[in-house]
Every structure is written in C-alpha cells, then in structure tokens.
C-alpha cells in the first residue's frame, strides 16, 4: 500500500426504485487511486459513476464495502474530499467572493484572511473583477469557474468532479480543462473526474477507468502515458479514442 492511497473495496449500492424494484447501482467495485493521480471515470449515462463519486464524498449514507485512506476514520476521508457538481451549485444569496470563502468558515479562518484567500482563488480562475457579483449575474461557464475556485479554496486532498464541464459549450469547456490541469499540476491534488466524453477523459487523465452499467462496475483500465498537453490529432490520442469507443460500445 502506497502512502495516501485511496482504496475502495467491495463497494455496492442498491436503490429502491419507485415501483419497489431494487436497482443495483454498484456491485463489488474495487478501486485504488494514488496520491496526486488524475483519474477519469468514463461511462455511459446511468452506469453509476455519479453514485460512486457521491459515496466517496460522503453524500450517500448507505452503501456496502469500505473506503480507506492511510488508516483515517471515514469522516476524515469524507472531509478530505470535495465534490464539484455538474449542476450549478453556487449559493445565490451570497456574492462570488462569499461563495468562495464559504468552505473557509468551517475552518475557523478569520474574515480578513478568508477574503484574502478567496481573492487569490478568484484570480486563479480569472474572475477577479466579478468578486461582488451575484451568481445569477454570471454565465454558466463563469459560475462553474467560481465553483472550481470554491472547491480549491476548501483545499481538499481529493477533488471529486462530476461532469463539471458537461453543460458548457466547447470553447469554455476547453478553457476550464486547461485551467484544471494547470491547477492540478501546480497544487498536486488527487482528482477523480467523472465524464461520458471520451476526448475529455484522454485530455485529462493519467488513468482512465471504464464503467459499465447494471450493475455498475469497472470493466477496463487504461493508462494514458503520453505527455500533456495532448492533442486530438495525435496518433496516440486517436488510437486511444478508438479503443475506448469500442470498449464503451460493448459495455
């Protein structure tokens, strides 16, 4: 076992559907993620990838199996993770700066220091001039940048991202992917990034895990070892793309 390795064992999750049918979302899922690794979980809609992230984030109360990280308690593990949602999740009654400063309140950081840190992350995502804006005054891409800044301000060891750029247009998506890679490489975080977009996974990940549905499980693991920045026109890229496409189609 490597230091700070996140290990998931036998993770299972069942839901009771409206018609009292039991739906198995995840079954005996095994996963380990190294410290500082960028892992993409790729799968079609409904394969349970969001559920998996929610379990790691501590948002699902009942599930089977165990999560471990360096002998920490499960609450400590939940606390060292932060989830960035696909839907906009900023608090509309707070302005941009207050949103970013929110996670710092729980850390008992004084107001002045909170503002300083919040400004630093706002600058990092390139929205310094919008600190007094309300979330609804921003475009979707800008809101998602603020969400990123807020998650970074929390300073989690593990950043969980649930298709955070899914609702954005291609250009904004590209910008935020670059931004995420930049932040990841300078701040050395572990990132678990869920997506159904093959190109996005290849662009970002050190390792891609392909999930299949009913029951949700990992069916394939592919290491992406060619250097970043990666381009769609490279042979490596297109080969990997084809390979993943085939796996996904068979899943």
């Amino acid at each position: 076992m490597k230091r700070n390795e996140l290990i998931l064992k036998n993770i299972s999750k069942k839901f009771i559907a409206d018609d009292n049918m039991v739906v198995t979302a995840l079954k005996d899922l095994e996963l380990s993620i190294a410290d500082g690794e960028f892992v993409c979980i790729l799968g079609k809609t409904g394969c349970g990838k969001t559920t998996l992230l929610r379990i790691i984030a501590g948002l699902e109360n009942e599930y089977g199996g165990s999560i471990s990280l360096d002998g920490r308690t499960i609450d400590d593990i939940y606390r060292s993770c932060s989830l960035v949602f696909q839907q906009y999740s900023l608090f509309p009654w707070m302005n941009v700066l207050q949103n970013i400063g929110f996670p710092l309140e729980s850390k008992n950081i004084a107001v002045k220091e909170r503002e300083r840190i919040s400004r630093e992350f706002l600058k990092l995502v390139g929205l310094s001039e919008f600190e007094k804006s309300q979330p609804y005054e921003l475009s979707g891409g800008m809101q998602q940048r603020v969400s990123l800044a807020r998650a970074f301000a929390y300073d989690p060891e593990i950043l969980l991202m649930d298709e955070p750029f899914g609702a954005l247009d291609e250009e904004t998506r590209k910008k935020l992917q670059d931004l995420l890679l930049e932040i990841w490489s300078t701040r050395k975080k572990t990132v678990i990034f869920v997506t159904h977009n093959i190109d996005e996974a290849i662009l970002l990940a050190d390792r891609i895990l392909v999930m299949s549905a009913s029951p949700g499980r990992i069916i394939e693991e592919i290491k992406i070892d060619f250097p970043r920045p990666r381009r769609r026109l490279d042979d490596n890229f297109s080969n990997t793309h084809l390979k993943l496409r085939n796996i996904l189609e068979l899943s």
Partner: protein
Amino acid sequence: MIFTKRTALGLILPLTFLIFWEFWAIRADNPAIVPRVGSVIMILIKPFDTLIGTGSLAWNTAVSLFRVLSGFMIAVIVCVPLGLLMGSKKTIHHIVNPFVELFRPLCPIAWIPFAMAVFKTTTVPQAFGVRYSDTMLDSVQIGMLFIIFYGGFFPILLNTIHGVSGVREIWKEAARTLGASPSIIFRRIVFPASLPAILTGIRVGLGICWMVIIAAEMLPGSDSGIGYLIIYAYELAEMDILVASMVVIGLVGLLLNSTLQKLSFRLSKWEALER
C-alpha cells in the same frame, strides 16, 4: 414619463369612485348615512383633534398599531423558529402538524369571544401585577395579544415550513462536501435559502393581524383603537368619522404591506433573479 403615465392610469378608478361617492352623498342628503367627501377629508387633515371624546384619529391608530405589532412580534418569535424546526426535523413535524392543522380552519375572529371570556380586559401590565404602567401597554389586553398572535400564526408558520422544505438539496450537499457542519448548514444555507418564503409569511401574517385587531376592537369591552372609533362613530351616527377611520385602516395596511414588500425584495432579490 412612463412613471407619470402609470400614476395617471392608477388614479382613474379611485377618482371615479370619489366622484360617484360624492354624487351619492349629495343625492342621499343624509350625513348620518353617507358623508360628503369633503367632511371626511376635513377629519383626515386634522388627525390630532380629539373626536367624540375618545382621543384623536392619530392616537387611536397608534394604539391599534401598537397592539398589532406587539402580538405580531410574538407570532414571529414563536413561528419562525418553530417553522424552521418543523421544516427540517421530520419527527417534530409529525408531532406538531396534526395539532396545527386542527386549528387552521378556525379563523381568528371565532376566537374573540372565547379570548374575552378567558382573559377579560386584563392588560399586559395587569397580568404582571401592575395596575397602570402609564405606557401604551395599558391599552394592550392579553386577549387581543392572543387573537393577533393567532392571526399571524398560520401564515408565518406555514410559509416558513414551506420555505425550509423548498431548500434545494444541491445547496445542502454542496455545503456538506465543502466541510460544513450541520449547524453551519442550518445558519448559512437553510435559513437564508428559506428567508424569501419566511418574509412572505411575515408580510401576509401582518396583513391578517391588522384585519383581526380591527374586528377585536369593535367588540364590547374595547375602549380604544381605530376599530373602537369606527363602532363608536357608528353608534353616534358620525359617519364622516367612521369613513375617515376606514380610510386610515386602508392606508396603514397599505403602508405596512409595501414596507415589508420593499424589505423582502431587498433581502430576497436573488430568488426572483435566479434561473
């Protein structure tokens, strides 16, 4: 320009109403039934003159307002925390809700005779063993406080519960995944997110309290307040005083509502502007 046009449009019906009223008053030619517009205005422009031996229009309005605000404050202090609790804790909701629903169809007016029988004319200072406190509290009867409290109870409580249950799951989950404890989630997420609904409840509740107090003051045993002024003017057939009092009730109600509406717009602007 647009504003003045809007104002002009808004004035058409009230002015027409006044003209018809004036015609009616002239035709009826009986100030003990229909007062002339002018005589009502004469009373309204001198609000500090003592009327029919019961104090001035302004003083009676102040007494009514003071009663309403006292009872209303109690209702806010009780109902907002109770509603927050009922909205966020299912068990408490299951305990309290059936009891509350039982009383909901019972309108506050129906409680007035009961409250008078139980509390008689005991004032707030008297309830604390002081005969006269020489403050306006001497005009605040416990029974009236009860009725006003009851009038504000349901709108404030139900809107608060509605507000809490409408807090989006994603906000609570986002807060949780950003390390917030249950108490921080309550203070910084649940409360501000339900504030727009709470303020709506407070506004509606205050409106009902203002209606209820007028009714309570009209009943026997009352000796002051704008409702009392109306019923006393009726007994003396002083219709100009009666109508002037009605106008004041309307104006005060309008003022209370628009003040709270402005406040609530400022505090919950995000709700209207959010997608």
